[in-house]
C-alpha cells in the first residue's frame, strides 16, 4: 500500500526481498545501495536480531520520471530467511507494494526455496493479499556455483504462474538491477 507524501511530492513504495536464508537478499540490497547515487538514497539501516538481520534503505531513482507530478521513492527491505523467524517476515510484509523472491539455485536448497515460497503465500494470505495481484518477480541467484538446479526445474517448482524471472549472481551484481527494474516497473504500472 503506497503512501503519498504531499510535502515532498513523492509516492513511497515498499519492495520486499523475500527468500530462504543465505540466498542473497542482503547481497542484492547492498549491491543496489552501493550503486545508487548517494544524494538520492537514505541510510542503509540494519536491524539485527540474535542471528539474523533485516536491512532497509530507501532511494529515489532519478530516471523513472513522475506520476502526475509525483516522484516515486522505493523503500527496499530484506527479511530474515531462516524458517523460524516468521514473526519478523510477516511484519515486514505489511503494506508491501512489490515482492522480489531471491531463490538460492543450489540443489541442496531446493526444499528451503519451496518452503519459503509457501511461507510467502501464507503470510500474504493472512493480510488478504494474493501474489497474483501484487507486482512480483523471481531471481534465481548464485548461478555461478557448480551445483545449481536448471532454471527450468526451478521454474517448475517455484514459478507456476510464470512471473518474470532473472538469473543472478548477486555477489558480482549480475541480474541485480534487471530484477529491481522489473519489479519497479510493475509497481509503477500498478500505481498508474
Amino acid at each position, binding site marked *: 500500500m503506497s503512501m503519498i507524501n504531499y510535502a515532498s511530492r513523492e509516492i513511497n513504495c*515498499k519492495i520486499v526481498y523475500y527468500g530462504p536464508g543465505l540466498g542473497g537478499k542482503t547481497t542484492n540490497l547492498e549491491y543496489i545501495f552501493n550503486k545508487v547515487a548517494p544524494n538520492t538514497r537514505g541510510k542503509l539501516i540494519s536491524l539485527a*536480531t540474535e*542471528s539474523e538481520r533485516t536491512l532497509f534503505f530507501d532511494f529515489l531513482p532519478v530516471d523513472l520520471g513522475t506520476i502526475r507530478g509525483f516522484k516515486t521513492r522505493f523503500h527496499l527491505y530484506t527479511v530474515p530467511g531462516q524458517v523460524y523467524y516468521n*514473526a519478523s517476515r510477516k511484519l*515486514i510484509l505489511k503494506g508491501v507494494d512489490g515482492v522480489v523472491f531471491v531463490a538460492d539455485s543450489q540443489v541442496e536448497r531446493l526444499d*528451503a526455496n519451496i518452503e519459503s515460497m509457501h511461507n510467502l*503465500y*501464507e503470510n500474504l494470505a493472512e493480510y488478504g493479499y494474493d501474489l497474483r495481484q501484487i507486482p512480483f518477480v523471481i531471481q534465481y541467484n548464485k548461478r555461478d556455483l557448480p551445483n545449481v538446479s536448471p532454471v527450468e526445474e526451478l521454474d517448475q517448482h517455484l514459478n507456476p504462474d510464470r512471473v518474470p524471472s532473472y538469473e543472478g549472481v548477486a555477489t558480482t551484481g549480475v541480474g541485480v538491477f534487471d530484477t529491481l527494474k522489473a519489479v519497479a516497473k510493475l509497481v509503477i504500472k500498478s500505481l498508474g
Partner: protein
Amino acid sequence: MNVACPQCKTVFRVDPRKVPTEGVRARCSVCGGVFEVVSEAKQAAAGSAVIDATPAAVAAEAAESETGGAAVADRQEPAPEPPASPPPAQAAPPQRAPVPSAGAPKPAARLFGQPDPEARARRLARALISDVAAYNPDRQEAGLREGRLKELFQVELKKSWQEYVDQVGIEVARSTPYFRDALNEILAKGKRVF
C-alpha cells in the same frame, strides 16, 4: 453490535458495553488480523481515521518481535470465538491500530504448493535442517569428522524441532520419520547418525 474483521470479513457479535468510547484493538480469531473496534458513539460521530505504520516503524516492530516483544502480540493474545464472544480489549492506544483502507475489495488469497500435510511436513523438516547446515558448514564438517554432530548442534536442533512441532503438530512430528530422515540425509550427509 456487529464487528467485521476488515481482512477476512468474519462478523463477530460484540457487547457494546465492552468497547470503550476511544475504541479498542482486537485480534480476529479466524485470520489473526489486528483491527480497531470503534465504539458505537464514535461510529455515529464520524468515520475512523486510517493511520498506517511507516515502513521504518514496521521494521522496528519486526526487530522487537525476535527479542520477544511483538511475538507475544502475534500468538498469545486471547482471541474471540465467532460468532458470539467479543474481541478482547487491548491496552495499546487505538491510533496505532493498522486498519486497512476501506474501499478496495480484497482478492481471494491463494496458497502455494501441495495441500498434502505429509508432503508439507517432509518439506518443512528438510528446509529446517537445510537451514542449520547452510548456516554452519564448518561445524557440520567438524561434527561429521569427530562424530559429535548431535552434541555440536544441540541448540539448533532443539529450536528446529520445536518449530517443526509448532507447525505440523506433535502427532505428525512423532508418527512420521521426516525430521529424522532430514537429519540423516542433510546434516549427517547420508550417514545414520540420528
